[in-house]
């Protein structure tokens, strides 16, 4: 029960109207970005702990991590992951780019199509 309580209420709005200092759309995106930045710091601290524990147990040295050089295959795998990752993040830019040159027929508003598709041919 407490987990559902926390999920539902951890981010609850406090009583009192929220002030906006920037364009609200910009401030909304900045707020999301700062929360993501926070979670990146959280993940980074966890990786740091992991490396230190592995080093303390003699499983690796942190110098090995710094000196690590991937083989050609490993580098290729990582590069492919990078490409996929960036493509995911910048999906909207890709789609906006494609829209610039989309043919009129390839870039119809769904509601326009809906009108066309629901037209009664008998009338």
């Amino acid at each position, binding site marked *: 029960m407490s987990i559902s*309580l926390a999920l539902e209420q951890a981010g609850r709005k406090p*009583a009192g109207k929220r002030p906006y*200092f920037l364009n609200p759309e910009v401030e909304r995106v900045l707020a999301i970005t700062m*929360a993501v930045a926070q979670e990146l710091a*959280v993940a980074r*601290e966890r990786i740091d702990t992991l490396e230190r524990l592995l080093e303390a147990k003699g499983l690796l040295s*942190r*110098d090995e991590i*710094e000196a690590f050089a991937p083989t050609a295959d490993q580098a290729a795998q990582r590069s492919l992951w990078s490409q996929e990752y960036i493509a995911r993040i910048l999906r909207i830019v890709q789609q906006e780019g494609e829209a610039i040159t989309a043919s009129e027929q390839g870039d119809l508003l769904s509601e326009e199509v809906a009108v066309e598709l629901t037209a009664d041919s008998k009338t």
Partner: protein
Amino acid sequence: MDSGETVTASAVEAYDGLPDSRVIGRHAIFPQTTHDDVARINFLAQLNRHLATQVAPFVRTAWESRVEPAARAEAGRPARDRHEVRKALLRDPMFNTWSALRRMTMEQRQQAGRWIALRQAEALAAKAAVSAGDKGRLTLNPALPMPRYVSAVDHHCMAGSYHTEQFPGDVSAGANYDVGLFITTGGLLGRWSDGGGRAIVDWVKQHKPDFKPKRILDIGATLGHNVLPIAAAFPEAEVIAVDLGAPMLRYALARAKSLGIDNVRFVQADATDLSMFEDQSFDWIQTTMFLHELSLTSMQAIFRESHRLLKPGGVVLHVEQPQYTPQMPLFEQAMRDWDAFYNNEPFWSTLHEIDLDRCFVDAGFDAAKLIHDHVSADARDIFPAAADDTVEDFGRKAAWRLVGAER
């Protein structure tokens, strides 16, 4: 920053900044935290400190180099008060960026603390219930009406404020408050977040060395973090801590017991009516960072109650942020006023401009027996370099004004 190679050993050795939040003291009712919870607290505390040390100075630069000249040119005269300064700043992108980030940091802090407290709310309540069985040390009043100054707006964006219960026996509001103090004060209150209480004990020991209080009242005690150093310094005294919020008081008792402080009892009450206590029954009445969360009428009533409750020879002391005096530059006043407008502290602005001396006299105190001084917290147990800190965080710094009166 990359690991290992790029951080020189000398930089690591010379580091005297904000400590890792694992220095926070862990008493028995302190919530369990995961590695991620702790990392989140670390990040938010560092982010607060960054905003204070690296971004707020740019707001001053913006004010001096472009906002003030433009506002003066437009009005044909300098700004007359802090409100004109604030309204001019609201048109500046640097002020707005700093403000947006400061507000978000507070919201993220609340979310992080509530995520910790709410997900273990039942376990914490069960622990607190054991302490609450300790007869006579916790007096709750479920019928107590919440005053408008608490119910209308949640102070410092703390959803549900001090008093809201998720279920009977809940202490999650106290747990959330406790885990977040390190973040909002940037570690400047020390391991047990009790820098305010320790500062007032030092002041009393220095200025009233022969003072032997038998009965002490702390108003607006929340977690009891500031009253415990007082109780510890005067172990012979009977100490009574009052607050509006039952979740706070339940948590505070469990916290006090865990820290071995046995001469404090906790009472749920609105301090505008402390009729359960007799006239002239306290030697010392204390509030710490409390007055700014009231309303004018409630503060006047609390001053009158303080006068009624104080024994002749007794002392009332309030620790607060500095007043907006004519000597304080209008820019600093406007920056200090930020919390009033943007961090849900609606009485903050008024409290810091009114004539507190007059409030004491109106409540019956002798104008010749008023006290004015300054106190500041030391955090040398966890953050020694903060002692040399020149950072101005406009309302968050652990350096306060002391106002009070002897009777």
